[in-house]
């Protein structure tokens, strides 16, 4: 379970279940105990009441005055409550007018001893019974032992207890549902800052520079500070890495220029080899850097700046550029890499005779088309492999297109080469993986 929300909700459910369950059980048990006690007290009262209504006449016969019985139902033809007085040897001396389906037998005990409990009647119902064995001392000094036996099969109390229990559990479950809903609301409010933090971190991976510290709870402030500091350090390390590589290249290239101009073919060969190695490893280092730490770069200014440079370098060709790119289209790539890609593609176009270059962004693809000589090769995509070159029309290392391909590949995209509508070259860069925003189209310039 990797979700904090799920964990907290599961925890809340568990706590609520245990709490509601224990509360219900405790209340039910307490009420049941009180009901039991009340029932026993009532039965005892019945027994004493029957004793109070009982007397022995001069002949030694036991009489019960019906009008003095504690329960009127005992004197009526009713059901559910039954009383009897049983003498020695099990002889029934008196019984109530009320009846029950079956009368459980009395049990002989010691004088003065209570006997109580539950018995099962023939019809399967349970009944509460209580008996007291006592002895009546007659005027002549004899003793008359007998047992007062009461059986109560009425179900009113049980039904009331059941109703109470159902009501109790319904109330507790309702309360649990309300508490759970409140708990979910509290969770949502409490986890809100974490959700925003997650969104901000996602935005960082899309190029935002830091997590916003506005409205962040104080408990999360150290975490946000640490994340921002880590991100800043990583960016700094990333930049330092690139600068170090460039400095290294700079420091090596001047001696290489000297060696290459000594007019010694052996030295020149080695110097050229070293130069190729430097270019190769610089390119590899550039393509192995991540794009997630890169700030978004607005595409149009880069296109415009490179185009302006091309106009300067190839001034005599009267170059025209048409940038059909939204003004707010941004790419989440290192700025230097974007210059490298556009610079190489525009330079290639100019070298190979283009006088008109059209760049458009459509469906997350950047199309760069020209009216130059195009690609002679039947499979122009083979030019994307490092070191291959189209022809020897101009000097160069022949790695421009391969460099473009590697950089775009590092962005998670692809490059494909083909023929433009005017017969020149058409380079298509799939930049969907790094395209941050493209909303408002711009008029061709």
């Amino acid at each position, binding site marked *: 379970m990797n979700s904090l929300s799920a964990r907290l909700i599961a925890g809340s459910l568990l706590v609520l279940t245990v709490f509601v369950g224990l509360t219900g059980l405790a209340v039910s048990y307490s009420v049941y105990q009180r009901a039991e006690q009340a029932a026993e007290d009532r039965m005892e009262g019945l027994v004493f009441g029957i004793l109070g209504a009982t007397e022995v006449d001069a002949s030694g016969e036991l009489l019960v005055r019906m009008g003095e019985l504690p329960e009127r139902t005992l004197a009526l033809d009713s059901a559910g409550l039954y009383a009897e007085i049983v003498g020695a040897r099990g002889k029934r001396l008196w019984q109530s007018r009320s009846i029950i389906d079956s009368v459980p037998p009395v049990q002989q005990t010691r004088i003065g001893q209570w006997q109580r409990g539950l018995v099962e009647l023939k019809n399967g119902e349970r009944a509460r019974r209580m008996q007291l064995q006592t002895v009546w001392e007659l005027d002549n000094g004899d003793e008359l032992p007998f047992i007062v036996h009461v059986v109560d099969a009425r179900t009113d109390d049980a039904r009331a207890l059941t109703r109470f229990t159902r009501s109790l559990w319904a109330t507790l479950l309702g309360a649990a549902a309300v508490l759970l809903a409140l708990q979910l609301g509290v969770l949502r409010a409490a986890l809100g800052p974490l959700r925003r933090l997650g969104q901000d971190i996602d935005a960082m991976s899309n190029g935002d520079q830091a997590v916003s510290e506005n409205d962040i709870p104080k408990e999360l402030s150290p975490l946000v500070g640490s994340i921002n500091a880590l991100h800043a350090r990583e960016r700094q390390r990333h930049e330092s890495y690139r600068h170090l590589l460039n400095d290294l290249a700079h420091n090596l290239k*001047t001696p290489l220029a000297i060696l290459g101009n000594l007019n010694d073919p052996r030295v020149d060969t080695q110097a050229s080899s070293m130069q190729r190695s430097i270019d190769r490893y610089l390119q590899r280092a550039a393509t192995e850097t991540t794009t997630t730490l890169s700030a978004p770069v607005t595409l149009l200014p880069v296109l415009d700046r490179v185009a302006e*440079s091309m106009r300067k370098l190839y001034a005599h060709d009267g170059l025209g550029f048409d940038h059909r790119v939204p003004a707010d289209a941004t790419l989440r790539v290192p700025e230097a890499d974007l210059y490298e890609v556009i610079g190489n593609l525009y330079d290639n176009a100019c070298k190979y005779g283009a006088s008109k270059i059209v760049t458009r962004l459509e469906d997350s693809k950047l199309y760069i088309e020209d009216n130059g000589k195009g690609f002679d090769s039947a499979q122009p995509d083979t030019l994307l492999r490092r070191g291959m070159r189209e022809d020897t029309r101009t000097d160069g290392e022949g790695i421009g297109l391969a460099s473009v391909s590697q950089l775009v590949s590092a962005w998670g995209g692809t490059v494909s080469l083909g023929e433009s509508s005017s017969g020149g070259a058409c380079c298509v860069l799939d930049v969907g993986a790094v395209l941050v925003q493209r909303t408002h189209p711009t008029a061709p310039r």
Partner: protein
Amino acid sequence: MRALVVEDEAVLREQIVTSLRAEGFAIDESGDGREGLYLASEMPIDIAIVDIGLPELDGLELVRQVRASGVSVPILLLTARDTWQDKVEGLEAGADDYLAKPFHMPELLARLRALLRRTGGWSEPTLRFGRLEIDTRAQSVTVDDHPISLTAYEYRVLAYLSTHGGEVISKARLLDHLYDESDVRDPNVLEVFVRRLRQKLDPDKKLEPIETLRGRGYRLALERTNDS
């Protein structure tokens, strides 16, 4: 032609200077940016080669200040930082071209010739003035397709006048662009070069390629027959 070389690595600077001199350039040179800025602003140079990484004042700032002072000579940047972002920044600073290190000297010379042609409004390496043709790559001259043998200084005089066709070039300016600062300059020697040039290019005095404007200087009198 007079070129300024600003490069802090002495050996490389010497290689460049040697090659340029062999090509007929008069040279001003410096190993730091601040002196380079002074030379670019004060000397009558035709072109500048400036390294980006310089002590005292970096190459990009040097170019910016040179342009800010109104000097419009073509500037070629030498850069070891050969990313397109660096190139764009260099060109925006005011440079006209760049050359990434390491480079071979023929490539540097070709770039310089191309820049000088572009500045003079020429798109091709061969300058044509009717019967007279000057191949700036081979530094060869023909009249009616017959090769003319010129000394290095004679070629320099002709090349400078031809790339500034139609302009009146004073003797002082011509001397500035022919000789290094340390060389002894004698206007009489210049007159000798011009006389010998006329004899070689126009032995029968029908072409009359170089016009002398008394008290003002010289001018290539031929019309350009290929353009930019």
